[in-house]
């Protein structure tokens, strides 16, 4: 049963890590709470950045500078430089394994402009970039014969202590959703690639329903540290009624943002934090906001944005070829995550992290469109290779019985929680108060009120038991544990947002609208000591 490298999560980051760990000679096992092609990566539309200069002149230096500028002082220049230098190699690799990128007339990978970029830098495949990358990676994983176990839900990381009383990770306990049994997967090293936590905003998020931060919550419980959890990106253009994403490439191609009077009110291609705030301000004034791509023409829309047309018709009953698209900004990407070193290893030995769940300090206070797919390819490789290398030198024993037993007890206990309060209602409630008070515009008083509400909900969790007592495929149970993880992360997000008494990138405090480099040009680090949350600012 034991593997060298256990990967939790089968999105882009997990699959890239798996391929490279496999290449490095490790016995790799992937577990996912869904199936390998159903992850958030499938939803990435805009593209993957690399300064190839295929559409017009570009340079790695420009990519570095654009990324740093958007990050507002919170990115690590070395990491950003590494990512941008690796970008052409990463795209070349994707191309070599069969990703169907759109092409230019002179047989090069096509590139387009996204917000905050000084050149058309995002390589794309219509508006299905993430989907095509993810499926090609999956096909590659099959070719390599790497084991994938679907519908296994992460409960906790298994940790042991060595002779110096120092912790190390050596596996994970999971709930087999199909059988309802708890299983333990022992492994010399573990890579967590479980995605972000935008679903704390519930329906005010573009993300898939499973984006509940499970791996991040499990990591801090196990002894890892998190960083910059207050930085949450709001995508300027989601469909108004459904929060379905309309890609930034619509604006990159020349789409306008209009208010109810039909006036443009912002630079549509500024970084996302600025555009989202501009829209938020208009909405506060009572305006409805629309995306206008009519002037791009039917041929262009069908060629470059086919998905957008389909979704707008379905969810808003409007055809963007002829009508304005009603939009609003919603939570889209979480910059914060598990703190990692230059080898993608967390503070907890043997636990590596990559993708949206990790914080490689390349996005800082605000991520640029096209940099997240890039991040998962570049650092997926690094995490896979590092974890394989670590596993090679792993000599400790692995004992998992006791932690498997406590995972079993946890499931039994949860099933016995009384059902006086409906957690689905609370989930929606948190989403709404987060969107209104801990979203695009925040202030101390509101944040504190939300924190009180979250702490109250934490206390009430044992009264929010599940209604479905089935052992087999109990999604009510899984959603409740996901909710528990989100509540745990909500507290952390709020504590960080309250501590950061300034405005920077996506963290905008209406009560303190200036950046304060003297006091806060630092990372918000959080960890737990005896289950108590601790927070501090660190370089």
């Amino acid at each position, binding site marked *: 049963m034991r593997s060298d490298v256990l990967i939790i999560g089968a999105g882009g980051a997990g699959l890239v890590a798996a391929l490279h760990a496999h290449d490095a000679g490790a016995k790799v096992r992937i577990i996912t709470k869904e199936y390998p092609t159903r992850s958030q990566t*499938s939803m990435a539309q805009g593209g993957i950045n690399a300064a190839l200069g295929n559409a017009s002149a570009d340079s790695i230096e420009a990519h570095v500078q654009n990324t740093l500028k958007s990050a507002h002082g919170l990115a690590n220049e070395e990491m950003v430089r590494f990512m941008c230098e690796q970008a052409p190699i990463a795209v070349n690799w994707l191309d070599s394994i*069969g990703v*169907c990128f759109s092409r230019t007339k002179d047989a090069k990978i096509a590139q387009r402009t996204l917000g905050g970029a000084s050149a058309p830098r995002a390589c794309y495949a219509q508006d299905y970039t993430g989907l095509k990358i993810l499926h090609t990676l999956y096909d590659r994983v099959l*070719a390599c014969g790497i084991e994938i176990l679907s519908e296994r839900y992460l409960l906790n990381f298994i940790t042991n202590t060595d002779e110096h009383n120092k912790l190390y990770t050596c596996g994970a306990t999971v709930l087999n959703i199909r059988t309802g049994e708890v299983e333990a997967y022992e492994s010399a090293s573990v890579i967590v690639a479980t995605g972000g936590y935008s679903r704390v905003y519930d329906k005010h998020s573009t993300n*898939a*329903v499973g984006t509940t931060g499970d791996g991040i919550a499990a990591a801090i419980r196990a002894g890892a540290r998190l960083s910059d959890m207050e930085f949450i990106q709001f995508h300027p253009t989601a469909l108004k009624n459904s929060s379905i994403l309309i890609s930034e490439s619509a604006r990159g191609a020349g789409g306008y943002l209009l208010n109810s009077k039909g006036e443009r009110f912002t630079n549509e291609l500024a970084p996302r934090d600025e555009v989202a705030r501009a829209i938020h301000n208009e909405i506060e004034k009572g305006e409805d906001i629309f995306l206008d791509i009519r002037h791009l023409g039917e041929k262009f829309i069908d060629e470059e944005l086919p998905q957008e047309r389909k979704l707008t018709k379905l969810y808003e009953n409007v055809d963007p070829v002829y009508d304005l698209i009603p939009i609003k900004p919603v939570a889209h990407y979480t910059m914060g995550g598990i703190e990692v070193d230059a080898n993608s290893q967390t503070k907890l030995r043997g636990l590596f992290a990559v993708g949206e769940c990790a914080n490689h300090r390349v996005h800082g206070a605000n991520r640029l469109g096209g940099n997240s797919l890039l991040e998962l390819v570049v650092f997926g490789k690094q995490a896979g290779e590092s974890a394989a290398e670590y596993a090679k030198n792993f000599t400790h024993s692995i004992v998992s019985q006791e932690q498997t037993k406590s995972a079993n007890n946890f499931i039994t206990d949860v099933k016995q929680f009384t059902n006086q309060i409906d957690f689905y209602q609370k989930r929606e409630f948190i989403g709404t108060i987060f969107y209104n008070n801990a979203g695009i515009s925040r202030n101390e008083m509101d944040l504190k009120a939300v924190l009180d509400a979250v702490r109250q909900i934490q206390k009430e969790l044992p009264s929010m038991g599940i209604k479905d007592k089935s052992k087999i495929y109990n999604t009510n149970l899984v959603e409740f544990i996901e909710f528990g993880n989100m509540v745990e992360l909500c507290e952390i997000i709020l504590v960080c947002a309250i501590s950061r008494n300034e405005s920077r990138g996506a963290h905008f405090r209406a009560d303190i609208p200036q950046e304060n480099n003297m006091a806060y040009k630092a990372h918000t680090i959080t960890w737990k000591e005896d289950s108590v949350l601790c927070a501090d600012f660190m370089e």
Partner: protein
Amino acid sequence: MKIKIQREEITEYEVALENATLLELLNEIKTKQDATLTYSSGCRSSVCGSCSVRVNGKEVLACGYKVQEEDLVEPLKNVPVLRDLVVDMDKAYEFNQKAKAWQTNESNIALTQEDEKRNEVQSDCILCGSCYSACPVYAVNGAFLGPFALTRVWRYVSDAREEGTSAKIDNIQTNGVWDCTLCNACSIVCPQGISSKADIEKLRSKSAIQGYIDPSFANFGGGFGFDGSPSF
């Protein structure tokens, strides 16, 4: 609005939602009426392939279908039901492995726009499994590689970067391209507008070029396909 859902038995729900997608309706039932109702969902925007079900006998993505009064919702066919609307996709996914639906070699030759267009649609496949549910051949022959796996083989065979085309064609002769009856049921239900039937025909042409012949010709002396229609 009233709908019926095939669970252990057909269960009727009344929901006060208008102009909603089926997924929105299922979510409403799950969170407000009956927490035991079990189904899969993910992206809500028809790209993750999680929420395929059948409505009134036809395969749809729950997130891409607007519910109608008295609709009957059932799980996919030709696949084990785990619970309510959730099915076990493992076996269907394994056909990708059996069909070797991947690029054999690494290659960086420059693709033209024409090269790229050749499998643009096929590479939109989301593995939702609707095609296996609708396929009458798969219903009677559980070893048939099936629609999405063969489409994914064509996606690589048609790719200018692939160097192992002939081995890929060799690999799909048994329980593969010739077993399809070209009935087109897969194309009709595909939410991504992919026609596996058309892809299978293209794979047959490739097979013929490689010297393979339709086994039904070999048996019956040629002329008409299994369903009575001319095979060419």
